[in-house]
């Protein structure tokens, strides 16, 4: 494999936070509710109104975030579009299934069905951008985004791609999320459950390129997705990249602060006693691709770092599964 380096040259997001190109953790509000909906931007500013009418919220959020991320580069059309999503286009999936029931399995309308597939967002972005290159969508629960990122990372490293647009998208579907509240997996206004999270939705995209620019946010040094995680695995990950534990200056953790997760994050943090720590789900809520927003915060943070020698490490997992590590270096 060649020694191409991979840089984050563009970022874009739609989240429950106010739109920003430079998030400041000290002014961001921590979420308090069980279900948090994303703040919707003015889509008509970036997309033709006629193309918006069939798009569900997830498609619109993904398209908007992708366009913002690409706008930060000089590239008009990316080589590839790679997305990750936990539950895909949930709103259209629910609509389609509800219509099936409502109409006694007759009179099935095509729009919601066509748009309900998990790769709708990646497909729509490709149509809008005229990208006929590699287009892939990963659906791997809480490592969906990391899988998409790893794919782009390996293909750019291996010179199969020069650049890629990579993102994570998940939207709140009212029926599904109501059921998850009944199952005590998502908190309600009245009650915080032992295994309940504060859920949210959003889309976050990155434009990755093998060439750095003056605006580059960070270099992605390595990505790892694991079924289990322990001290040895973390140490090996860092030593493979010739980095000592004390060189990691910041940790971005995808913790939902549940009892079941505590052991994993505590033992992880204990390896880095002097590192700065950010629990990004306090700001963006939990969804299967919330780690994409974590990476956005970490990349912006890396860009602002004064000291060049400190690295930023992201660790994400959920209920002891879907562990991932992403290592960033200031450009």
């Amino acid at each position, binding site marked *: 494999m060649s020694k191409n380096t991979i840089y984050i040259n563009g970022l874009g997001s739609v989240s429950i936070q106010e739109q920003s190109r430079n998030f400041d953790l000290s002014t961001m509000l921590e979420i308090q509710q069980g279900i948090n909906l994303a703040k919707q931007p003015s889509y008509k500013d970036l997309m033709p*109104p*006629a193309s918006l*009418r*069939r798009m569900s919220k997830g498609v619109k959020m993904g398209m908007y975030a992708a366009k913002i991320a690409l706008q930060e580069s000089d590239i008009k059309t990316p080589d590839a579009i790679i997305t990750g999503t936990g539950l895909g286009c949930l709103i259209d999936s629910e609509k389609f299934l509800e219509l099936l029931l409502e*109409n006694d399995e*007759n*009179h*099935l*309308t*095509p*729009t919601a069905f*066509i748009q309900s597939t998990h790769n709708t967002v990646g497909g729509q972005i490709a149509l809008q951008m005229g990208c006929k290159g590699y287009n892939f969508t990963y659906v791997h629960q809480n490592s969906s985004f990391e899988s998409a990122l790893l794919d782009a990372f390996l293909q750019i490293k291996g010179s199969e791609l020069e650049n890629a647009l990579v993102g994570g998208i998940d939207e709140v579907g009212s029926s599904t999320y109501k059921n998850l509240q009944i199952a005590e997996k998502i908190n309600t206004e009245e009650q915080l459950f032992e295994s309940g999270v504060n859920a949210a939705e959003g889309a976050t995209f990155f434009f990755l390129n093998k060439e750095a620019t003056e605006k580059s946010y960070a270099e992605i040094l390595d990505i790892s997705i694991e079924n289990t995680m322990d001290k040895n695995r973390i140490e090996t990950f860092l030593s493979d990249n010739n980095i000592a534990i004390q060189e990691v200056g910041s940790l971005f953790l995808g913790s939902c602060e549940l009892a079941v997760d505590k052991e994993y994050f505590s033992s992880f943090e204990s390896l880095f006693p002097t590192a700065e720590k950010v629990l990004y789900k306090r700001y963006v809520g939990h969804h299967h691709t919330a780690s994409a927003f974590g990476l956005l915060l970490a990349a912006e943070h890396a860009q602002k770092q004064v000291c060049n020698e400190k690295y930023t490490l992201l660790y994400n997992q959920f209920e002891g599964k879907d562990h991932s590590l992403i290592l960033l270096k200031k450009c």
Partner: protein
Amino acid sequence: MEDLKKELKVKIIEVLNLEDIELSEIGDQDALFGDGLGLDSIDALELIVLMDKDYGIKLSDPKEGREIFQSIETMAAYIAAHRTK
């Protein structure tokens, strides 16, 4: 017939998510496809389902659909003559 035309316009705006279009902007004789309202093949499928679900009319011949879906006026005339509910 006028009531049916108005009903059709309301249903088309709702079913096809034509959020930015007012009832008054759709003329009875305006082309629904192409240069008129700009509907496409997915919209045609939605209209076929609408005819079946709301008026009990099953369209199976695509050539027939081309005639019927020319405008609100042609749709209303066909529905008035063939509706079963």
